[in-house]
Structure formats: structure tokens, C-alpha cells
């Protein structure tokens, strides 16, 4: 009897130790994820009728065409042959798109975690050429910050939206390596502005200061929060993924100048040498206080804006002028107080800074040590996020739409056209 009892006790203890786990459940109102399966994502790209701008993101120019990202929805394509009256040609639905770049007649974009290449050969029939899956980190769209997030099940697909509802979920203390979307982080890409008809099969654009895609020669670089992704685009229609390189923490923007990449991070600017395109070599880092900081470069000078008072941390907002004559040892030359700067652009010796509600500011940077004293013009009525100045034309994405200016006369820049943000017309 005693043996039986002992056996029962041991068996029960083993059972309890292995299976009697407590369960803790939370019941709360939360942002509950709406998923798109990976299968649906892979076949979601399609061309549709033109739409109004609703939440414009990054911009790109190629030949006579303007590409404006509708954040996480797709890309608007405008014919800009007549800058005073851009024609809304088409809309390409690309779920999760944030960044784009164009080489020849191929457009590269992100689609949540995938990298895709689209053919622009026939703008009436834009098709997907190639998809490279699982390149980018799993990101989440902006959510209602009044409520917590429900648990995300990455197996179900990508999160395309949220619904507020009461949820019941078991608590699991797990580490989620998920990166958070910067709700106001826009990305500009670039292009050469010209009056050539059609999308040419050669050349590539120029990115704005908020871009995270950039092309140098036959290499496309994209950056996420931590990694630099490198693609061979020698054959534009068949991009080949080289690999990832850890490039720093909290990377926000990418700017290519010559054989160097400048990565704007929350804590500074990281500089890499891309003389060997496949293998970016770390050169240096210029540290600054934590803030959101796009960067542009002209010759031996880098211009960096820091925006504080937001999720980037810190409260300092300013423009830094950094000497990169020796890229291994960047030096701060001058600073200039700002209100809430976003993107910036430079052409020749003219610097354009989007200073949020303080408007668009234009500086003469002939003497980079005295930027603040050389404010040429300030347009406080323009709440701009990013600009691309090019040969007398200024392309600007702002809160309420896309603007084109002529800045031949810097003291009296002229609005050529505006594509306004409008309510949904789907």
C-alpha cells in the first residue's frame, strides 16, 4: 500500500510540475490588428484609377513624372510635363509602401516586409517585375495612442490597420523585436527634373532628405532602423539582393553623396564609404543630442536638422553645419536655432529648410559659418516636411499637399502649382 501511495504522489508531483501552469489574462480595450495574409500581400500590387492625395509621403521625380507615395497605400503618378498643371495619371496600389526609388524605367519600393520592382515602361500597364520577400523588418502602422496594442501574431500576416475593440488575451512576457513607425516621418526620393517625354530607360533620381532608399551607380541602398540593405541593380529589372549590414541604431534617413553614404540617426550621422559598393565601410560617426535628423550633403559640408520635442527625444531643435572634409573626423562648424525642422535640401549655395509651423526658410550658405545671419527668406505660411531644390524649381511636400515653386528670385519665390490633399475619393 505504501509503495502504491508513494508512486501516486511522485506521479502527481511530476504531472503538476510539467502541466499545471498558471494562466493570466488581460481584458481591455485595445488597438486590435487587422491583418493581410502574406499570400494576399504577394499579389496585392495593381494599377488603378487616379486618386486624390490623402496622406502624402515621400516624393520622387523622374524625367517628366512625379511619384508621390500615399503612405502605406500606393503611389500616385503625375505627368509633370507642364509644371503649372501636373496631370494625375494613375495610382499603383502597393500595400505598406513608404519608400521608393527609380532607376531607368524600373521603380523600386518596399511593401511591408517585401522589396518589389515595378516596370514603368508602359505607364498604362505597370507590372510587378520581381519581389524579394522578407527583406525589411516587420513594422506596424500608426495606431490610436489612447489605447494599448493587442498582441501581434506575425504568422497571420502584416498589420494593415487597427480596430478599437475589447480583447481578451493571455499574458506572455516576450520580447518583440518590432520597429515602430514614425508617424510623421516622411521620405522623399529624388529625380532629375527635365522636359523629356516619357520615362527614360536610363538614369535615376535624387532623393529628398527624408529618403531611406538611394541609388549609387548600379547599387541600390535601403535602410531600416538598424540595417543597410544592399541590392545590385545592374540589370534594373532584375535586382539582386546582396545582403544586410548593421549600420547603427535608430537610423532614419539615407543620403548618398559621391562615394559616401550619410545615415541620419537619432544620435548622429554615420558615414560609410561605398567605394566598393557591395561592402560599405564604416568611416565615422558625428554624435549629437538625440533628435530626428535628416541630413543633406554638398561638397565637404553636411547639413543636419535636429527636431526635438517629439518621440525622437530631447527638446533641442536646430540646424548643424558639419565639415566632412575629413570623413573620418567630422567637425561641427556652426549651429542655427530652429523651431521644428523636418527635411531640408540644398542646391548650389542655397539651403532650404522645412521648419514645421515656422515655415520654409531659405539660407545663403556661401559662408557656412554664418548660416543664421544669412537667412534670405522665410515663408511662415508653409508647413512643409521635405523639399527638393533643383535648378530653380523647388519641389515640396507639405501637410496639405505637394507644391512646385520657381525660386529664381529667392526673395520672391513663385508658386507654380499645387496638388492638394483631398478627402478620399475611392
Amino acid at each position, binding site marked *: 500500500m505504501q509503495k502504491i501511495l508513494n508512486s501516486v*504522489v511522485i506521479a*502527481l508531483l511530476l504531472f*503538476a510540475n510539467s502541466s499545471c501552469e498558471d494562466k493570466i489574462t*488581460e481584458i481591455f480595450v485595445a488597438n486590435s490588428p487587422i491583418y493581410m495574409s502574406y499570400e494576399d500581400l504577394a499579389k496585392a500590387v495593381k494599377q488603378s484609377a487616379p486618386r486624390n492625395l490623402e496622406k502624402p509621403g515621400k516624393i520622387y521625380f523622374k524625367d517628366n513624372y512625379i511619384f508621390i507615395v500615399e503612405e502605406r497605400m500606393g503611389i500616385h503618378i503625375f505627368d509633370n510635363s507642364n509644371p503649372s498643371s501636373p496631370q494625375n495619371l494613375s495610382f499603383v496600389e502597393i500595400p505598406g509602401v513608404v519608400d521608393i526609388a527609380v532607376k531607368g524605367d524600373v521603380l523600386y519600393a518596399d511593401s511591408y516586409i517585401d522589396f518589389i520592382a515595378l516596370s514603368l515602361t508602359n505607364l498604362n500597364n505597370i507590372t510587378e517585375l520581381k519581389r524579394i520577400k522578407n527583406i525589411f523588418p516587420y513594422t506596424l502602422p500608426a495606431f490610436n495612442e489612447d489605447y494599448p496594442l493587442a498582441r501581434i501574431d506575425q504568422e497571420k500576416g502584416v498589420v494593415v490597420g487597427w480596430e478599437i475593440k475589447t480583447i481578451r488575451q493571455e499574458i506572455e*512576457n516576450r520580447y518583440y523585436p*518590432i520597429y*515602430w513607425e514614425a508617424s510623421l516621418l516622411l521620405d522623399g526620393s529624388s529625380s532629375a527634373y527635365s522636359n523629356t517625354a516619357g520615362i527614360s530607360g536610363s538614369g535615376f533620381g535624387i532623393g529628398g532628405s527624408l529618403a531611406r532608399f538611394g541609388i549609387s551607380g548600379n547599387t541600390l541602398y535601403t535602410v531600416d532602423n538598424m540595417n543597410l540593405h544592399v541590392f545590385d541593380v545592374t540589370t534594373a529589372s532584375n535586382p539582386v539582393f546582396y545582403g544586410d549590414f548593421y549600420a547603427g541604431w535608430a537610423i532614419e534617413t539615407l543620403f548618398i553623396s559621391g562615394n559616401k553614404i550619410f545615415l541620419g540617426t537619432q544620435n548622429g550621422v554615420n558615414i560609410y564609404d561605398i567605394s566598393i559598393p557591395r561592402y560599405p565601410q564604416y568611416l565615422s560617426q558625428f554624435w549629437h543630442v538625440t533628435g530626428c535628423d535628416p541630413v543633406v550633403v554638398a561638397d565637404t559640408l553636411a547639413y543636419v536638422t535636429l527636431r526635438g520635442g517629439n518621440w525622437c527625444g530631447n527638446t533641442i531643435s536646430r540646424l548643424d553645419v558639419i565639415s566632412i572634409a575629413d570623413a573620418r573626423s567630422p567637425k561641427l562648424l556652426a549651429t542655427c536655432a530652429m523651431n521644428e525642422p523636418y527635411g531640408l535640401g540644398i542646391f548650389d549655395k542655397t539651403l532650404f529648410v522645412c521648419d514645421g509651423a515656422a515655415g520654409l526658410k531659405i539660407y545663403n550658405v556661401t559662408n557656412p559659418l554664418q548660416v543664421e545671419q544669412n537667412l534670405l527668406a522665410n515663408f511662415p505660411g508653409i508647413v512643409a516636411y521635405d523639399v527638393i531644390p533643383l535648378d530653380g524649381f523647388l519641389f515640396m511636400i507639405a501637410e496639405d499637399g505637394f507644391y512646385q515653386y520657381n525660386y529664381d528670385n529667392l526673395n520672391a519665390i513663385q508658386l507654380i502649382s499645387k496638388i492638394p490633399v483631398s478627402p478620399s475619393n475611392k
Partner: protein
Amino acid sequence: MIKQSLFLLFALIMSFTYTHAQSNTDLLPDKQTNITELQTEYKLNGVFNITTLGVLSGSSQNRQSAPFSFQSLMMYQLDHNIALGIGMGIEFLEETYLPIVGDFRYYLRGSRFSPFVFVQSGYSLPTDKTANGNIVYDYYSIWPGYYPQYEEVQPLGGFMINPGFGIRHLFHADFGMEISFSYRHQNLNYDAPTNTRIEADYNRLNIRIGIIFQ
């Protein structure tokens, strides 16, 4: 204050029922003519007490793998096999609780040595007004948004059910011991800030040993 009052009430119930039990205690020999049987066939009649100590054993992955449990039951023997009762105890889970239970048990043999099966059900009352918000978390994620962090939660208690089996051995007409094993499901509820409710479900092996007396 509530805690002290509950203990006082518990002590009063114990003393009253013990006194009452003594007045009704009886030794009932099955066979009056057999002196050996008379000495061995002890049977409980009327009200008796079962006081037990035990642990709520569970997986080592749990925050508390084997919290301590004390319980005192006042039982009434309906016939040779069936007993009913009520009881109260104290358990040291994440917070301290006073479980108030009803107990039904069936003695398979109804003699001095008898296996039995039983089921208890009741409600556990918290003695603490607040609980540490860490009831939910062993650690926090470094990423914002996923885990609402509670500075303070209010324990509300919850229902429990406890079916099991055991063995009773009466050493004397008014004294014995028992050991029991049961599956214990304990539900505990908490109110947390930001309109959040938390439910904790304990699934444990309850191992108890105790004394029986009248």
C-alpha cells in the same frame, strides 16, 4: 480591519462548532458483541473538524510554484459514507486570500480506514486592498505599447473548485488523519487602471495532510 474581523469570525465559528461537536460525539460500534470490532470500527457521527495544511503545487515556470495553504472544515456526517461541510482557510498566493468553501465528500468504506473522494467549491476573498502591478509581468518589454504597465491593481478574489481524492485513517473514535490530492482551479480577478480587468487562473495539484477530530 476586515482581515481581523474575518479571523475573529472564523475563531468564533471554530469554537462554537467544536463545543457543539463534543456534545454530539458518539462512538458507534458496528457489532456490539465483538470487542475487537468495537475497538477498530471507529465511525464519525455528527459534526467533526478537518484541519489541513498543504501546498498548491504547480509548474516551476509559475511565479509561485508551491504556495502554502491552510484550511479548516466543519463537517457533518450524514451517514456512513457521506459528509458535508463548510470551511475557511488562508492561502498565500500573490496576495493573501481567505477561501470560503463548501465541501462534499464520499467515504468509500465508511470505516476507520477509508479512501474518499471529495469536491470543494467556494470563493476566495482577498485580504489586501491593492496588489503589485507586477502580478502580470515578470519583466517589461523595452518596446513601447505592447504591455500596459500597471502601477497598482485591486484584487477582487474569485471562485475556486477543488475535486480530489484521499485516504482517511481514524486512530481513535474522535481523532484521525487524512491525506488528499486534488486538482485545484482558482480564478482570481483584478481591477487595473485604464479599464482593464485581469484574470489569473491557477491550475494546481493540491496536496494536503491534516487531522480529523470531534
